[in-house]
């Protein structure tokens, strides 16, 4: 009996941290949270907008069962509103404009009517309100002792196709509430952050005689051409320290993956197959996970830098055309219907190289371009469903997906 119990314990422990195993937390088991509004400045439309933004963020942190009712109360009122009496947590906040025109917010978190946390926020312009909402959700998540949601504060850069061969590059927050068009005019695709600070980015320009890789410094607005190649030129990944790039180029009409070093400005070939090798992704800076059609259909492979051996990583699906890697985890796009005559479904799947478990992460439509957050906690992706293009976020450990639709155009590619 003791042996059996030990065995059970061992099995439980070995699977405990595996994100490929679905963690289904019942909604009822999450603590309830209501939000009370006490704002003195700004009109009702803006107040409601901020409330909605905050509710969305609190939902995405996935640790509360969030009540969506908009209720107002005095910030210093001693009791919560009567409808919230049974709530485990109540978040009360006030947004206001100060004498210098800054946007301010202050919050207090009440647990069973007792104040357990408070904090104030300030920002120059009210148009950046969504970043305050993200910061509030981030801080509450930290206060609750949950794994970090630092990705919530990162910027997303994406390419939006607005007409055939016309696109714009947009910097946004992860919910698309804030959007700033940084490159417009022409056909520019595959933007990729150049560093952790997110103040420089690469992108592919398809307007010249040859596809070119360009680099933009956001602070100065300076654009620099890095390299050009006939046929194809894409920056697929940037190493953590920003000194190495994985490029897909085709100088002789043959798409292959190249390693480019930013300090020497020299590149070397990583793959050498006569078919298609694309979408190189660094794993711990020493291995490259990529997409190749070397078996006659697109699938996910890996190769150690400096080695000739190529390893097939995925044995499920007949068309796996895009991937992102984070330590032992790989998320990939798989075609689930395969013919030219009907609408196709593409779903994202997660696999662990340690356990070989596969978990399907999406259910409907065309789901593509998955990108892990740096800490592996979340996956950002593009969803196209019924003529609506959205950016989605998957919270792996909470088994939840959230979608943020785009108002116009179609997302071509993204990075964060």
């Amino acid at each position, binding site marked *: 009996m003791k042996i059996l119990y030990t065995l059970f314990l061992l099995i439980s422990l070995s699977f405990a941290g595996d994100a490929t195993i679905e963690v289904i937390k019942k909604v009822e088991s999450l603590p309830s949270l209501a939000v009370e509004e006490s704002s003195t400045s700004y009109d009702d439309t803006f107040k409601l907008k901020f409330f909605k933004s905050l509710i969305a963020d609190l939902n995405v942190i996935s640790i509360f069962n969030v009540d969506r009712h908009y209720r107002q109360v005095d910030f210093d009122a001693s009791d919560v509103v009567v409808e919230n009496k049974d709530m485990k947590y109540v978040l009360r906040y006030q947004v206001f404009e100060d004498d210098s025109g800054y946007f301010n917010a202050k919050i207090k978190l009440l647990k069973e009517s007792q104040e357990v946390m*408070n*904090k*104030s*926020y*300030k*920002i120059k312009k009210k*148009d*950046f309100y969504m*970043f305050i909402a993200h*910061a509030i959700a981030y*801080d509450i998540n930290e206060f609750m002792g949950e794994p970090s949601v630092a990705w919530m*504060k*990162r*910027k997303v850069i994406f390419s939006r*196709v607005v007409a*055939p*061969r016309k*696109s*714009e590059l947009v910097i946004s*927050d992860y919910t698309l509430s*804030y959007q*700033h*068009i*940084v490159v*417009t*005019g*022409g*056909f520019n695709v595959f933007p990729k952050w150049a560093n952790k*600070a*997110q*103040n420089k980015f690469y992108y592919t*320009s*398809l*307007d010249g*005689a*040859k596809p070119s890789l360009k680099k933009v410094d956001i*602070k100065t607005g*300076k*654009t620099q051409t890095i390299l050009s190649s*006939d*046929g*194809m030129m894409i920056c697929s990944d940037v190493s953590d320290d920003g000194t190495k790039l994985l490029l*897909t180029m*085709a100088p002789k*009409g*043959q798409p292959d993956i190249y390693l480019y070093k930013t300090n020497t400005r020299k590149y070397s070939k990583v793959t050498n197959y006569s078919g*298609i090798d*694309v*979408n190189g992704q660094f794993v711990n800076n020493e291995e490259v996970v990529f*997409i190749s059609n070397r078996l006659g259909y697109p699938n996910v492979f890996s190769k150690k830098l400096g080695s000739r051996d190529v390893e097939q990583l995925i044995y499920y699906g007949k068309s796996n*055309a*895009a991937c992102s890697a984070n330590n032992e985890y790989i998320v990939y*796009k798989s*075609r689930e219907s395969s*013919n*030219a*005559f009907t609408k196709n479904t593409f779903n994202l799947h997660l696999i662990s190289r340690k356990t070989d478990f596969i978990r399907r992460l999406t259910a409907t439509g065309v789901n593509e*371009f998955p990108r892990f957050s740096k800490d592996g906690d979340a996956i950002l992706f593009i969803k196209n469903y019924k003529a609506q293009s959205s950016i989605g976020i998957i919270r792996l450990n909470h088994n939840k997906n959230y979608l943020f639709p785009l108002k116009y155009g*179609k997302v071509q*590619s993204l990075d964060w």
Partner: protein
Amino acid sequence: MKSIVLSSVVTALLMFSGCSDKDPEVSSSSNSNAQEVEAVQTETVSSDNGIISSGSDSLSMSELEKQLSSVYFGFDKFAISSDMKSDVATDADIAKANASSYTLKLEGNCDEWGSDEYNFALGLKRADAVKKALVAEGVDASKITMVSYGESNPTCSDKTQACWSKNRRVDFKLLP
């Protein structure tokens, strides 16, 4: 415990000001309202607007371009099918004769099933297949350039099989 938090993300976003005019234009607005800055129309000379009529007796570049017929491909395929071979042969004849003084730009395209790199590579392999066929017919390889537009240059946007097959193609453009 009270503290003032000014998000570093926001600080960085506030620093968009001071951009200079570039091609393509980098927005110089520090306003956060996602204001779209007008494109600089004249700075990018693409193959479309770079066509200049010669005005001589010979056929103009745009007229020649119209004579070159696009090559269409099967679903997820980049080999030239047998029914397309005669079109490629005709294209090669034009490229060798009247269009021999121009550079031939082959533009690979795909249907709407994917914006990822693989789809771009598929478009490129289609362009490369046409290039190899043209070279086999005697066209000078050094006069051919290639580009792939993936799914982002459709000629047809209906959700039908006929429409998707029109988008799986290689177009010909002439460059002076």
